[in-house]
């Protein structure tokens, strides 16, 4: 479970190391934003798995090529979000299946992206919890694992999973409410 939960380096630090050609930093950057990019493609634009994979690779190809043009290293998150949005729209427009993406549909997609931004902020909050809480919440909510599977994998009684989830959610709520989580939606923050 790498990605944003191993946020030893800030987004800006990660981008700076990527610019220096550090392959490990690039791996971390991909891990950190992989869920966000794939969720925008599959949930906001409802792309098939095949199309979503194309968008996913396209986004990271463009990100790799254009990282040097990012004006502020802190802006990687909204930049990736906007890049993904643009790649999805490009695919829909170029595929011939949709000549033009209608405005209401684009608005609906932007609404979902705003929710995904909030989801990513919540996910960032997980990084500040203990390893057991991170693992349990990720397995239960993100990986859709059963109490039995989680109990077996983490070697804890399955009967205690529900109470642990509740306790961990309480910690997560405290963490999130204890800091400013106002991150503007990607779709509204950066233009192409």
């Amino acid at each position, binding site marked *: 479970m790498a990605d944003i939960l191993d946020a030893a380096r800030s987004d800006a630090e990660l981008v700076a190391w990527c610019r220096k050609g550090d392959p490990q930093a690039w791996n971390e950057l991909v891990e950190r934003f992989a869920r966000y990019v794939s969720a925008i493609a599959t949930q906001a634009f409802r792309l098939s798995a095949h199309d979503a994979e194309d968008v996913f*690779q396209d986004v990271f190809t463009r990100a790799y090529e254009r990282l040097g043009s990012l004006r502020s290293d802190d802006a990687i998150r909204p930049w990736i979000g906007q890049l993904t949005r643009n790649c999805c729209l490009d695919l829909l427009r170029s595929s011939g299946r949709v000549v033009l993406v209608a405005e209401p549909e684009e608005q609906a997609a932007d609404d979902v992206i705003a929710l995904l931004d*909030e989801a990513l902020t919540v996910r960032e909050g997980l990084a500040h919890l203990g390893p057991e809480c991170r693992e349990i919440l990720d397995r239960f909510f993100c990986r859709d694992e059963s109490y039995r599977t989680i109990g077996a994998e983490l070697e804890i009684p399955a009967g205690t999973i529900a109470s642990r989830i509740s306790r961990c959610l309480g910690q997560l709520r405290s963490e999130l409410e204890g800091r400013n989580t106002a991150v503007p939606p990607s779709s509204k923050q950066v233009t192409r």
Partner: protein
Amino acid sequence: MTTYNEERLGELLRMLPPAPIGWVTAAQELPLARVQLDALVQRAEADVAYRDSVVADLELALRAVGVEPKPAVVEHLRKRLAP
């Protein structure tokens, strides 16, 4: 300050399931693929016959140098070899 209840937190966490591992791995290998791609383009620029064979079948040429011919990569190569 944003406030959350447990149900809302659960809903938001569910929105970000893991991306398929194959997608992630392929994206992580982009820098290596870029090196191989650069070498391919350099050779194509120096060797007309090789360039023609690459242009005739971009996917085959990419596979031959060990690069997965994802659409984004094929398109990138097409642009780089455009006259």
